[in-house]
């Protein structure tokens, strides 16, 4: 008995992608197969405690889910996530000078650490970043002398006695209000925002420039990286993602469309055009094709929680880099290598330009990223095992354990395997998030948000 308990403890505590049994928990969003474009989820992010889960969509809306407090009687699962607040963060705009429409799609959401009762997050579209305050109101003043309860003003001459208004409880109301708007600093499309560990500043990155902001100051930002060539005809690469180091407030990285990552130190100079470190893996010449450049473009970069490693995602793989070693990654995981022979088709249908994100689990032992056919992949760095799971409404009984999936690249397809040609490339998982402390993951399909938990039993 003792042995059995200790084994189970090992399983639950390992955090391994394969040792964990992932179960369906919830799915949010319309059941409709006909997806409205505005409902397409464009970003997913847990807050620092994991209690709140925010999503942004193409229609410019932000939806925040809150985890229920754990019910002591319900030991089988952790609290469910329910809608906490919904608000319109960005609206479509039109730049009349350039005759350009500015999409309202939310590109990124980043939470600030909580300092008081209210929650703060940054949300950005292509051009403008906004700081939102989300606060709760659960009481209201009652008993005004000059106002009726319904708000109408009383005739002062009818007032005969005075009373002091008091706060009375009311139904919880969650309000979101924009506290700062950081606009007009980006000529190109913003792809990343990242909050500094000093919790006072943050960076925003577009295709060619990175700006440093102070959260309190909206009319000024400092340009810290500028890779725009004097002659645009000489443009060879763009910035694809940027992030501050989780612990060193002077350090940040940015990735490029050429597959390189540059680490910069803001103490070195005001303009960090010269990197402190350049991370690049030489290309394998045997894999050269027309599309080599495209598939080496990095779509996401994320530091580990420890700050010792960073992970990059390119079209076919996930790479883990040790910050102390620049010439190659320490680990490489193939996400869907079977697509390498299909690059031409994927170029034609634009799938090759899909920007997949990646994420770490709380202990930095497992990494996760999305793929096609609503598959997502996890790689356990310790056991070197990987697993492919599917986000599908077919498995939507709570606590149903997800069955691992397998794609058959070529040759005889075994039972339960799916052949490459029957993959649905319209069903892509670009955005995933892992709870900072627990084994709870949020996986976004086109317009649905799936929440999975490990089996607690």
């Amino acid at each position, binding site marked *: 008995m003792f042995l059995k308990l200790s084994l189970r403890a090992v399983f639950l505590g390992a955090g391994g992608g394969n040792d964990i049994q992932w179960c369906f928990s919830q799915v949010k969003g319309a059941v409709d197969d006909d997806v409205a474009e505005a409902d397409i989820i464009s970003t997913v992010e847990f807050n620092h405690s994991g209690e709140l889960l925010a999503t942004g969509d193409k229609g410019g809306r932000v939806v925040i889910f809150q985890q229920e407090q754990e019910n002591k009687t319900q030991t089988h699962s952790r609290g469910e996530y329910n809608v906490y607040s919904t608000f319109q963060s960005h609206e479509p705009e039109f730049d009349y000078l350039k005759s350009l429409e500015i999409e309202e799609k939310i590109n990124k959401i980043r939470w600030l650490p909580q300092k008081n009762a209210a929650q703060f997050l940054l949300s950005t579209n292509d051009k403008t970043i906004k700081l939102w305050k989300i606060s709760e109101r659960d009481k209201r003043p009652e008993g005004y002398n000059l106002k009726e309860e319904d708000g109408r003003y009383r005739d002062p001459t009818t007032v005969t006695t005075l009373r002091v208004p008091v706060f009375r409880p009311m139904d919880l109301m969650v309000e979101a209000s924009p506290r700062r708007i950081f606009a007009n600093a980006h000529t190109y499309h913003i792809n990343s925002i990242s909050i500094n560990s000093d919790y006072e500043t943050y960076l925003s990155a577009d295709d060619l420039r990175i700006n440093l902001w102070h959260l309190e100051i909206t009319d000024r930002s400092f340009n810290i990286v500028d890779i725009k060539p004097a002659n*645009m005809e000489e443009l*060879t690469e763009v910035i694809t993602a940027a992030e501050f180091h989780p612990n060193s407030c002077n350090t940040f990285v940015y990735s490029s469309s050429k597959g390189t990552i540059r680490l910069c130190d803001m103490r070195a100079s005001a303009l960090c055009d010269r990197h402190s470190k350049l991370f690049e893996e030489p290309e394998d010449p045997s894999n050269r094709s*027309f599309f080599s450049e495209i598939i080496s473009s990095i779509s996401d970069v994320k530091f580990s929680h420890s700050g010792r490693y960073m992970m990059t995602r390119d079209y076919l793989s996930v790479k883990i880099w040790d910050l102390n070693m620049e010439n190659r990654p320490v680990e490489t995981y193939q996400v869907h290598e079977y697509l390498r*022979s299909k690059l031409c*088709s994927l170029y034609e249908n634009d799938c090759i330009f899909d920007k997949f994100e990646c994420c770490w689990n709380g202990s930095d032992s497992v990494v996760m990223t999305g793929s096609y056919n609503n598959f997502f992949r996890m790689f356990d760095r310790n056991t070197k095992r990987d697993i492919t799971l599917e986000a599908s409404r077919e498995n939507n009984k709570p606590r149903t354990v997800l069955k691992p999936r397998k794609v058959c690249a070529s040759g005889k397809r075994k039972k339960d395997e799916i052949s490459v040609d029957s993959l649905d490339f319209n069903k892509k998982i670009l955005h995933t998030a892992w709870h900072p402390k627990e084994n709870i993951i949020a996986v976004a399909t086109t317009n649905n948000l799936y929440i999975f938990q490990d089996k607690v039993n």
Partner: protein
Amino acid sequence: MEFKLEAHRIVSISLGKIYNSRVQRGGIKLHKNLLVSLVLRSARQVYLSDPCLGGPGVGGPPQPPPAQEQLPGEPAPGWGEPHARDSSMEQDPEPAGAAPEPPALPLALGKRSLEGSPLLRAEAVPEAPRRRVEAAERGGGGGEGALEGPPRARQCCCRRLCCSPHGAPRADCGCRPRPDDGAPPPPVCPRKRSASGAGGGPAGCLASGGSPVKKPRRDSEEQPGDEEEMETGNVANLITIFGSSFSGLLRKSPGGGREDEDGEEEEEEPQRGPEAAEPGPMYCDKPVLRNLNPWSTAIVAF
């Protein structure tokens, strides 16, 4: 030959993407267009350096170009005229220096292309500095396809039906099989032209034809305010250029369903007026393309 067909197809797909990106919501996406132009460049280089199509000098390992010839520009002489109508086009002070000419001139240049370099030179000029840098970096351009051979001249072997549609060159073809360094060379920067000051948009592309000799580095002449515009107008120019080239191509070669659609689409645009009026630019390539096009639709993609 198969590489050539695939390259041809990829070029047409890429052009379609660049064209469509103009009407996308949210404006032209720089990253995607950069990647597409890199693919376009690679495919074009493969296409041009394939011995089945090239002239006598093109077979075998790529050779350094003649000294005065700058690097190849647009897909092929036959793919259309240099974008003479685009007066906002960047020019460099190259000896080749053929600035955007008024429409009449391309015809003349087209004729001269039969002798070799000048047409390509004209087309190539905007890219010259980049390519030269690339060549220098690779230690002088003998490298993998950095430099394409002399322009395809009239002595196109395909004119002699040397390369059969079935892909196997005939024994008497004279085209040396190209060692498959198949890997397209590392791309140079995409062909981008700065917009005529006012940013992107089709209207900006076709500013009235400038004088034949164009000042270089229009960028430096722009107001500081202009620099901060999202410089994707040059991508729009690229589309105009390719678009006109393509419609010229398609007028001569009615094969290829997909390409037809693109061509028609482009021809309808009012801005295409000047291009539409241009005389057919192709000489040696017509028969080549006639041979090619029916097959481009029959390509096995992989």
